[in-house]
């Protein structure tokens, strides 16, 4: 079933968008402001740039091997054993990423809405939802992402639009807020929020026209990056940098500061959170799917359905490891930085090797001729 190439370019784009936009939406302005003060939008832009480069590398690699994922073509490029070792890292990384996303989600929910509900329950419910959905084949995976994208984009845009009446453009200046070293590290943190785009390696083998993958990547990074940038600009303009530093989730506060005209709903934050659950679901779903699909390919299994439940306890335990919110964000930052080497440097390395190898092959072929 999975060999059917049915995913369209639009679906690939939407998968990327909904995977990228996730838990990170809430603390993003804080990350950016911490690193860049009023230069937060610039930091975000840098981050998007770094993420875009990473995504382009992955896409390029995928186009060169249009019927394989990174798990399979890495063996081809690096040799069987080295490839396997690297794949193990990829799998472990995405397991951790899934767990951390679930945990971060649970933390937000239990601190802002469901205060007395145990963290475990919110995390488990989300993971179970992802696990059950991950049993579907890759086409359904694409449909699900495709379906939720407008639901994910709309509330952010609405909140940004409504909150703009409280904006103060002065808060956005000067454009360069701090020194470049800090901004660079901040950009790395922001870029780490885009790690979900690694899912592209899984999509390309299922695409109708793998050659159009680059187009999908560009659109996805433009839309999701644009949204992130818009969000950072709006939060900074509404709160100012100093206020943002005092908030864990500035985006959520942005929703709390705005109320719909006409008092239809007095508070947007809870509605925003509820819809944000969808965004988190698609992200966790994607990284969960990536994990089990990679494991399936790693062991060359036929089916990934049972794996879906098998992995669940591990992800859950990983998710419950951080002790509090500060430790959690510490770990997220740390894992994010390490992750960049897996999601950007490793593919870059693969790409270079691959290009060299094919050149040599061509060279030798032409010699033979």
């Amino acid at each position: 079933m999975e060999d059917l190439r049915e995913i369209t370019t639009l679906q690939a784009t939407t998968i990327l968008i909904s995977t990228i936009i996730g838990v990170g939406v809430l603390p993003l302005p804080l990350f950016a402001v911490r690193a860049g003060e009023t230069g937060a939008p610039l930091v975000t832009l840098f981050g998007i740039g770094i993420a875009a480069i990473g995504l382009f590398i992955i896409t390029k690699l995928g186009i060169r091997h249009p019927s394989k994922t990174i798990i399979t073509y890495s063996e081809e490029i690096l040799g069987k054993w080295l490839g396997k070792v690297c794949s193990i890292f990829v799998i472990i990384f995405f397991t951790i990423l899934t767990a951390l996303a679930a945990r971060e989600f649970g933390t937000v929910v239990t601190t802002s809405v469901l205060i007395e509900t145990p963290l475990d329950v919110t995390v488990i419910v989300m993971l179970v939802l992802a696990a059950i959905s991950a049993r579907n084949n890759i086409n359904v995976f694409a449909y699900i992402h495709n379906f939720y994208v407008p639901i994910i984009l709309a509330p952010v845009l609405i909140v940004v639009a409504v909150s703009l009446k409280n904006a103060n453009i002065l808060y956005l200046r000067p454009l360069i807020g701090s020194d470049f070293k800090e901004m660079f590290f901040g950009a790395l943190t922001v870029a780490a929020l885009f790690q979900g785009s690694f899912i592209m390696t899984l999509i390309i083998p299922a695409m109708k026209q793998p050659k159009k993958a680059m187009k999908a990547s560009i659109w996805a990074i433009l839309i999701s990056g644009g949204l992130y940038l818009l969000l950072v600009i709006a939060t900074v303009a509404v709160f100012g940098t100093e206020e943002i530093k005092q908030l864990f989730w500035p985006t959520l506060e942005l929703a709390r500061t705005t109320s719909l005209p006409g008092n239809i709903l007095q508070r947007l934050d809870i509605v925003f959170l509820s819809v944000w659950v969808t965004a988190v679901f698609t992200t966790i779903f994607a990284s969960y799917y990536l994990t089990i699909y990679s494991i399936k390919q790693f062991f060359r299994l036929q089916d990934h359905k049972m794996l879906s439940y098998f992995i669940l306890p591990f992800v859950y335990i990983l998710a419950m490891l951080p002790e509090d919110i500060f430790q959690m964000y510490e770990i997220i930052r740390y894992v994010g930085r390490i992750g960049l080497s897996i999601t950007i440097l490793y593919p870059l390395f693969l790409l270079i090797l691959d290009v060299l190898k094919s050149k040599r092959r061509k060279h030798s072929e032409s010699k033979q001729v």
Partner: protein
Amino acid sequence: MSQNKYRAKRIFLLICLLPLLTGCWDSREIEQRATVLAIGIDKAGPGAEEREAEVSHEKGDISIPEENMIEITVQIAIPGRIPLGPQVGAGEKKPVLVVHVVGHTIEDAIYNLQQEIADEIFLGHLRLIVLSEEVAKEGVKRFNDYLRRNPEIRRTASMVVSKEKASKYMEASPELERVPSLYLAEMVDSLVDLGKFPESFIGKFWSIFSSEGQDGYLPYFHIKGKKTIQINGLAYFHGDKMVGKTNPQEIGSFMAGIGAEKGGYPIFTDIPGNKKEIALVQAVKRKTRIKASLKNGKPHVLVKVRYEAKVSEKESPNVKIKKEEDIRALERGFSNAGQRSLSDLIAKTQKAKSDIFGFGEYFRAQFPEYWKQNVETEEGWGNIYENLSYDVEVDTYIRHSGMKDK
């Protein structure tokens, strides 16, 4: 495949049912919540320590905060007293319960309050926080933390400063609305709509408070007679402490200074040629441009205000407004008055080092180098603001003079 799906469903069902065994953690029915509609914060009188319930600490505990004790007065909606739908004759009993408690901090006081009330205190509908002038002058920083930390409290709630004890506002019963605190909250909201006060909900106050180049401001209330409450001016802050208040007329000037678009204040303007006759000219719209510049290393601001106004009343029948020149003259008169008033207000706030206009933000945004060198802390900007040189230019355009000729 179908069997797998069936199993998946069973597992999901089990997981759905599991929480039923443990209960619904956060579920609390709306009528089981003590919905706090408004909080008034006062300084506790003498002997407050004695009155305090020992909830969060024992008497004589060392870790008691050093600040003065506060007394909070809350207004709690009583379910059932406020009927569903428009019912007549429901005004017999008071629809809200007013409770006074003392504590060292807000949270401490709220805990003390919870000790007295059966239902769980619910702050999700807190629309209004009244600070008495006394408390505001001592500083509001101590309250911010709790209000920011609690997810129930909305950022769009209003905070006001009161001339009298805040508890009086909780007990006042204006007759225009069934629920007194709602009347107050709606009053604050409508102030914005009428152009009487700029947006000043807590979230905005916090943002301004946090920013380095601006000081906070809140509406200042005063109880008139028994039943009505008046907006009596604007309380301006330096840091977290209230340092003074303006008169209501000056709010208009202030709004001109920050460039609030909607105008709501009239000014008596001399009708040229008749020294004793005056006309009321009301600002309808404003447009403000602030130019910050460094003159020889000294900061300087130029405030340019362009009013759009209308003639709303002219008292004497003897004088006539019928020529274009009359309107021009009125415009000039209005401009002068506005210019004077705004200059006075800036001077007044300069004395208190309270930059409620946010001129500092312009310098921070436009001259980051200067800012880094001269203004390290907020206190620093206050000192510079004190000696800030400024120019005010006011330009008026009277669009119409009403339905009446002459």
